[in-house]
Structure formats: structure tokens, C-alpha cells
């Protein structure tokens, strides 16, 4: 049997300050970028120009899309309209502050140029060119954000019941980190924020939360099992014990999203980017945000047995006399002399 990272014994928590600095730096860059340039919303949110085109011969939507992409009109919607030779094209010029009429003319000219290349000049007829307003109101973003915030509250309550409020808070902070990091990623990468991308961001929320809880479940179990160890050691032990699972689960999901990224085509690519980044940041945050934040919360507001406080009190987490409880062989059996039950 293949066992990856079976007896892992890495001191993950030691790197928490480095990890905080890195993620803080990324978010700072993202925040600056966001303020400076703003998100690149898709035509569904901004509206643009609608053109109805009828071609003399059959054309593939893919060919038109390639031509439009080449002409700089990324993210255009191209739909067959009634017949195979009629198309409805919704396009816009990204980041143009031009007035409706001016951008309408510009889009119309660009589309005509692209169609000259793909269908051939004189081979098609533009039936109508008109400005279109957004398909989705901006209230969608507001509602999506409200929904995420509300779901955080519900998660907090659930985890407070099933675990302890400290775990819930740490999990929610880690998940919130992922949402912010993903938005920063969207901004820096200039990805188009479309409805599909909103779906991807929600997926990241679910994935990250899931992953954090898997590790916290191990922490909960190990806290009962090993009474002697402090929280620092327990966290490290739990992360190491779940490492094979993390590697395999994240391996399979990242394989799927990479397939989407490479083969999924132009329209799905932003979605695949967000998913890939989300799996990365979700994994990162479960280990480097959720666990250290739990440690920090435990230090600020110690629980009954004050095990977190003890960790910091000793101030020697990096060089523990007993290295963070290796989940080694069954031979080195009773790591914890006082099993909980």
C-alpha cells in the first residue's frame, strides 16, 4: 500500500508568523489593487452592447469567439438566435469609462472588424446594435455577501454547539480569510467577475470550511486523548495526522480543477482559476490560519483547562523537550500516559 506522509512530524505552527506575513502581504497588495483598479466585472454586471447578426452561411460560435477575443473583446456572450446562422452577441470593452453611445460605436466597430475576419466581409448583416443594461443588478453582490456573513454566524453557532465557540471563531476567521484572499486574487489577476465566478467563490467558502473542520475534528479528539500535551503540540499532531488525507483530497480536487483550467476553454477559465486558487488558499488557511488563530484565541480567552495559555506561558513551543508528539509507530505506544477514557 502506498502511504504518503504517513508518519509526518512537521512543526507547522512554528511557521505561523511567516505565514501571517505572507498572507498579509498578499492581501495588502490585493487591497491596494482593488482600491486602485476595482474589480473587473463581466458584462452580466456592467451591461454593454448587444448586436444581432445574421450570417449568410453557417458559422461556429467558437470561431466568432476566437475572433472577438483576438480583437480584444474578451468575455463576450455569443448565442445562436433562432437559427444556426443568426447570432446574438453581447460584448463590451473592459474598463471603458466612455459614454453609452461612444462605447456602443466602438464595440460595434470592433465586432464588425472581428466578424470580417471570421465570417468574411459582406457575408453577414448586422440587424441591430443597441446598448444593453446589466442582466443582474448590483444587489446580487450585496445579497451574496450578506448570505456569506449570515452563514458565518450560523457556522459559529453550530461549531459552538458541536465543538466550542473558540473553534467556531477560528474556523470562520480562516474562511473569511479565504474569501478576502480570493477577491484579492480576482483583482490582481484581472479575472472577470461573472455569475460563474460568484459560484466559484461560494465553492471556496464551502471547501475551506469543510477542510478546517476536518482538522479541528482531529484536534477535538486529540485534546480528549492526550491530556498532557499543550494546545501547540496537539495542533501540530492533528495537522500531521490528517496530512495524508489532506494530500489525497486536495490532490484529487486540484487535479479536477486543473483539468478545467487547461481544457475547459476561455469562458470557464476564470471559474477554474478561482477554484484552483481557492483549493490552495483553503488548504493553506486550514493549517496556517485556523490553527494558529485557535491558539491565539485560546491564549486571549483561555478555556477551562487553560492549555493554550500554558503553551504561551512556557514560551518554548519551538523547542519542546518532547517533540510535538510524533504519530509514529504503534510501538512507541502510550505517548499520552493519561488517555482521557
Amino acid at each position, binding site marked *: 500500500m502506498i502511504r504518503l506522509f504517513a508518519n509526518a512530524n512537521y512543526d507547522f505552527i512554528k511557521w505561523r508568523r511567516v505565514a501571517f506575513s505572507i498572507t498579509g502581504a498578499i492581501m495588502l497588495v490585493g487591497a491596494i489593487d482593488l482600491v486602485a483598479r476595482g474589480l473587473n466585472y463581466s458584462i452580466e454586471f456592467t451591461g454593454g452592447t448587444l448586436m444581432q447578426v445574421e450570417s449568410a452561411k453557417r458559422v461556429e460560435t467558437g470561431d466568432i*469567439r476566437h475572433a472577438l477575443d483576438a480583437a480584444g473583446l474578451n468575455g463576450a456572450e455569443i*448565442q445562436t438566435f433562432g437559427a444556426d446562422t443568426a447570432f446574438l452577441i453581447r460584448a463590451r470593452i473592459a474598463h471603458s469609462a466612455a459614454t453609452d453611445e461612444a462605447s456602443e460605436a466602438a464595440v460595434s466597430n470592433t465586432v464588425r472588424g472581428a466578424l470580417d475576419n471570421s465570417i468574411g466581409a459582406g457575408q453577414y448583416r448586422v440587424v441591430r446594435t443597441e*446598448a*444593453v*443594461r446589466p442582466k443582474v443588478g448590483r444587489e446580487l453582490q450585496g445579497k451574496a455577501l450578506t448570505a456569506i456573513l449570515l452563514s458565518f454566524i*450560523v457556522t459559529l453557532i453550530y461549531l459552538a454547539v458541536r465543538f466550542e465557540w473558540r473553534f467556531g471563531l477560528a474556523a470562520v476567521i480562516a474562511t473569511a480569510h479565504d474569501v478576502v484572499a480570493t477577491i484579492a486574487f480576482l483583482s490582481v489577476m484581472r479575472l472577470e467577475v461573472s*455569475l460563474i465566478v460568484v459560484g466559484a467563490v461560494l465553492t471556496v467558502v464551502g471547501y475551506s*470550511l469543510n477542510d478546517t473542520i476536518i482538522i479541528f475534528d482531529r484536534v477535538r479528539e486529540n485534546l480528549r486523548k492526550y491530556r498532557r500535551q499543550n494546545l501547540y503540540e496537539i495542533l501540530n499532531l492533528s495537522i500531521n495526522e490528517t496530512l495524508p488525507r489532506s494530500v489525497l*483530497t486536495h490532490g484529487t480536487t486540484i487535479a479536477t480543477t486543473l483539468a478545467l483550467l487547461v481544457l475547459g476553454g476561455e469562458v470557464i477559465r476564470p471559474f477554474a482559476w478561482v477554484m484552483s486558487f481557492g483549493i490552495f488558499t483553503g488548504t493553506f488557511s486550514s493549517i496556517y490560519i485556523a490553527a494558529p488563530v485557535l491558539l491565539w484565541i485560546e491564549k486571549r480567552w483561555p478555556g477551562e483547562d487553560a492549555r493554550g495559555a500554558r503553551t504561551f506561558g512556557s514560551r518554548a513551543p519551538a523547542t519542546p523537550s518532547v517533540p510535538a508528539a510524533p504519530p509514529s509507530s504503534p510501538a512507541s505506544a502510550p505517548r499520552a500516559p493519561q488517555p482521557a477514557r
Partner: protein
Amino acid sequence: MDKRIRNRLWIILGLVGLSVVSLLPRNTKQRVIDPQTGRMKDTTVRRLPINLGLDLQGGIHLALEVDQSKGPVPDCADAIQRAERVVRTRIDEFGTTEPVVQIQGRCRLIVELAGEKDPARAKSVIQRTAFLEFRITDMKNQFKDALPQIDAALRRAGIKARGAAAPSAVSQLFGGDSSKAERDSTTDANTPGVLSSLLFQGQLPGEYLVPEEQWPLVDSLINRPDVRAAMPRGIDLRWGSQAESRGARAYRALYAVDSRPIITGEELVKATARRDPVTNQSIVPFQLSHRGARKFSDETARHINDYMAIILDSRVQGQPPVIRGQIGANGQIELGNKPLQEASDLALVLRAGALPAPLSIIEERTIGPSLGADSIHDGIRAGVVGVVLVIVIMIGYYRMAGALAVAALTLYCLFTLAGLAMFGFTLTLPGLAGFVLSIGIAVDANVLIFERIREELVHGKSLRLAVEDGFLHAMNAIVDSNVSTALTALILYAVGTGPVQGFAITLIIGIAASMISAIFVVKTLFLIWLNRRPDMVTLSI
């Protein structure tokens, strides 16, 4: 075979059977272009009962414009903006998932619907103006008193019933002598008035009856500018909504009502549809806002013993009831023997509010998927590659156990699709994202279980005990992570709109299906496996 295994197999078989039944192809109505006439028509096709959204499958594209035929609308850009909001609310309430409602140009509204089962009904819901008002009928008979002037005005204009819209109806209308007289002479002042001869006094003040076949003629007469000018100030005419039979003939009621409504549908906060248990009529009970209720009770107090017409889209609904006392916040609209579905459509449009102006459909076409056929093709290819990768990794790493997990994964896909079909949800790309995530969750559950079994084996437990404990110990993690993800999805569904809801629904169904397949099905497969190989010493995991 163990009895426990047999029971588990029965349950799985039942679930699979249920899923297969709900996924059987069935007949659905679809709107396609008739190749001969080029018009749209409804055809019936057999297909899988899974609705795909506009982005994956396309749908119908409707272009609507403000209807100016019944009077000009001064600011159509403003009207269309307000109409957009109303239409969006109505379609959302109608239950169509993720429609497109978009303003095109200045005065046009695009509505795109995916996989609508009853396009005609959807169109009528979109187009209905739904302007509700309550007006007191002409209690002082001002209209009746003005009839001679109106007839005179018509005569002056040279209208003998002939000049009206339906000349063929004229002869039946007056019957015998008078019609001949009408036709022969153009200036005979002694003939009965054109309009008054067509009207019969109804039972209550302000009510007049017109024989059903003549109401188009009367309608064209009362809409003439000279007739309007001769109408008494403060009185309007409104038609009844449907023909009613008195004796052998069918009549249509015409009501003279105050031109000032005592209250309008703007004050309405709630409307539902139900069937009156006593009369078996379809009724729409409604409730007014606080402000509306106060206004309504003030007005009704002033009009006790008057008759009040309930007017919807310029048509009087039913016979105006008499006001017996003050009326507060609650009232109802009676629809007679119309089907309940019509009542619920009416309740829906009343709740969503009135359109600022009537809309007419100027174009209707089928539209291809908004993602483009090319993107969908690429996406399917990428999805297949992704699934193959998952299968390779699972079987490569976990061998036989991995193969069992993959087998359970196919059942998971079946369950999820069946869930979508059973609840009639529409699958869109954000929904597929939820599906992908739940596949990840299903795989993760199996990975958790298998890793636990491995740990138990490493701790020196016997094979069967390790399997038993592995499932048991992995349970906490799986349940907690899935329940919190499902709670998140529930909130997203409750608060979010359109694509957010689509994502949430597929995720919830996917999580349920993954709990069943990854835990119950895989455990059953494990039990069978262990049962068939009692001599097994090393687990292929």
C-alpha cells in the same frame, strides 16, 4: 449472506430504483420554430426530466416594448425601468429559475426563460398590467342623465351605428325597422339614441348591460373623443370582466364609476389564492398596508350603502358589492368559476405590483446557450478528464477500496441527478460548481474513512475491527464538516438570488447524496467484500 448486508442491499436497491424512476425520460412541452411557417409552436418531446438553465441549454427570448397603442406613454425609458423590476419579481415568484431580464436600448425589455413548461402562461404573467383599483359606482346616475347629450354628439358626428367598427353587427343590433331607418337616413333626429339604444339598465346604480355580441361596437363608440367630451365630469366607463347570462342571452356589463379610485393596488401588501369552501369560487383574498387600510376604512365609511367596483386592468371584477359598513385591511376578489391556477397567477401579479404601462411582445425566438456551444463542449471534455483523474488517483492509491469508492461515486451521481429531477430544479453552471464541490466532498468522505482504517490497521487492530472502527471514527469529522457546509448552503439559498440559489440547491442535494453513497453504500460494499473473503488477512486499501 448476512442478514445485515441483505437489508442494506435492499435499501440501496430501493434508492437506485427511485432515482431511476425519477430520471426516466418523459414528455415535456417545448417551444420550437415551425420550419414551414417560421412561427413558434409548442411540440412535445421526450427527454430526461432535468432542466438545464439558459447558460447551458438556452431557452426562449422575448423582446417587450411599451405598448403605446392605447395612449402614448411620455417617458418610456422610465416606464421600462420600472417595468423591469416588476417583471423580474413576477418571474422569480412564478418559479422560473435564473431568468434574464435586461433593458435593451431605451424602451425595450429582454426576457429570457429557460425550459419553461407553459410558455403561454409565463407570457401572460409577464404582460399582465395588474393595476387594481376600487371605485364607487355612479350613484347619482350622472351618466344616465348625460346619455341624451352623448347621443346628440354622436348624431352630430354623423354616427349612425354604421360608422362604427362592426357594421355587420348593426342590423342584428337594432333589429327590424329601426335599423333600416338608421341605415337609410343620415340625419333623422327622431330615431332612438345610438348609444342609449344599446344599453339596458342593470340592477344597481351605474350598471348597464350590453348584449355580448355588441360590446365591441359599444366599446368603439364610448372611446370616441366626442363621446368622451360629452361624458359627465368625474365619471368613467369600465367594462365587466366577463359575459354573464340573463335568461337566454349573454350580456356584458358596463359600469359608470367615479373617475377617482378610493384606493389602488399600490397599498396592497399580501394576496393569496384559494377556493371559497361555500360557493366553490376561486377567490383572491388580499390585505392592505396600514396606510391603505386607514384610507380604505375612511372612504368606505363615507360611502355606506354605495356600490364599490373592484377594477383590475380596467375591467370590473364580478358585480360590485354594496358597502355595508367600514372595511378595514382585508378584502377579496372573486373570480367566479375560473380555475384556481388563474387565481394564483392573479395573486402573484398583484403581489409583484402593477406594470407602469402595458407591454407588448414584439419578438419571440429560441436562443442558444449563453455560454456558447463551444464552451459547453470544452467544459464537458474537461469534466470527463477531471473525473477520470479522480478515478485513477482513487484506484491507484487505495486499490480495491478505491474501486469500491468509485463504484459508490457513480451511485452518488445518480442520486444527485435524481434529486435535481425530483425537485424540478434547474441546473446551471454555478449549479455545476456546487456539483463539483459535492463530488469533492464525497471523495473526501471516502478518503477520511480509508485513512482512518489504515491508521487502525497500523495500530495493530484486526482487519474487521479496523474497518468497523475506521468507519466509526471518521464519522464525527464527516458529519460535522458536511452539516456545517449544508447549513452554509441553506443560508445561501434563503438569502441569495438566482445563481447563488442554484449553487446552494445542487450543493445541498449533493451533500445528502454524498453522505448516503460515501458512508452507507461504501460500508455495504466493504461488508460484502469482507464477507466473501473470510480468509483475507491484508486489506487492499
